[in-house]
């Protein structure tokens, strides 16, 4: 078990070394015009960079922001994405309510919040990548 832990740390080292990108020259040039400190544009990487670029386009692929509520009627239910056949929903029935109504939402017909009756429908999703 200890060797697995140490191997984990070693893998991190190897990844870190490989992560130094090939754009060194371009980054240095844009840094120089700024005063020598790189920007996130120059050097953000990995998930941080992905989220930064998506946010610029107004997208939120990693669900950082809370979901926007639909009207919750039978015709316009709150659509709840899920990678499996069910997902827990927490309904804040009225704004600023501190009691959150939690329930399992199953695939199939839309369900109603047991407290306020708002409609929720599960939308199965494939993981895109």
């Amino acid at each position, binding site marked *: 078990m*200890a060797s*697995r*832990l*140490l191997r*984990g*740390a070693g*893998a*991190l*080292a190897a*990844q*870190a070394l490989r*992560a*130094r990108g090939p754009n060194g020259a371009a980054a240095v040039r844009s*840094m120089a015009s*700024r*005063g*020598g*400190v*790189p*920007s*996130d544009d*120059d*050097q*953000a*990487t*990995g*998930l*941080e*960079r*992905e*989220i930064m670029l998506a946010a610029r386009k107004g997208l939120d692929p*990693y*669900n*950082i922001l809370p979901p926007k509520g639909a009207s919750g009627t039978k015709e316009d239910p709150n659509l709840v994405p899920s*990678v499996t056949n069910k997902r827990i929903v927490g309904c804040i029935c009225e704004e600023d309510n501190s009691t959150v109504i939690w329930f399992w939402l199953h695939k199939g017909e839309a369900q109603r919040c047991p407290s306020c009756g708002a409609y929720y429908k599960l939308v199965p999703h494939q*993981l895109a*990548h």
Partner: protein
Amino acid sequence: MTHQTHAYHMVNPSPWPLTGALSAFLLTSGLIMWFHFYYTLLLATGLLASAMTMFQWWRDVVREGTYQGHHTPPVQKGLRYGMVLFIISEIFFFAGFFWAFYHSSLAPTPQTGGHWPPTGILPLNPMEVPLLNTAVLLASGVTITWAHHSLMEANRKESAQALLMTIALGAYFTYLQMSEYSETSFTISDGIYGSTFFMATGFHGLHVIIGTTFLATCYIRQQMYHFTSSHHFGFEAAAWYWHFVDVVWLFLYISIYWWGS
């Protein structure tokens, strides 16, 4: 391959929490062996083990954040909460020593001669080196703020200079305080005055050394281009810690050095 659909960081298994716990055991048992039997090997091993744990653990955090991009906005928010909570815990730690000082100094017992400072204690003059120390730390608070603003304005040269100045002032404080320690006419075993004085100022001095080390690490990372003008939480954490150390000194100076003299 399954990827996460959230912005958080699920950290890979790591041996450093275990080595940290083991080093804590070696440090505590090592202190006992040193205090009671003058035996230093356990303590030395513990110091080495804890230093290595800290170096490797924080090196991994830098790799995960700077080199691999795991420190997304929610992750950074969590790190901020963590640092704030840690500093609050340190505030409580010092509160204990200030409580001890005020408990004994506000109502001096017959054992002290009924007054504070106790009979026979010659306190340090608060208008001499302790006042200089106050100026040094206040100035270092200014220089680190300068360094931060320079960093945010992408000014590499000024940011590095201001950070270096902060480190120099921190080292100067430590040097001055060490020379003051050799100048006192009293020791830690000189009654309640000695105990409260050296416990409070001693732990403060240790925190100055820790803070200076943190700043020096930031300097090295800045030289290696780790910080960007908008993402440099390690630097901000070091700055918060440094301001905390400065504020504790101000309380020490006013309570122990000035009012208590």
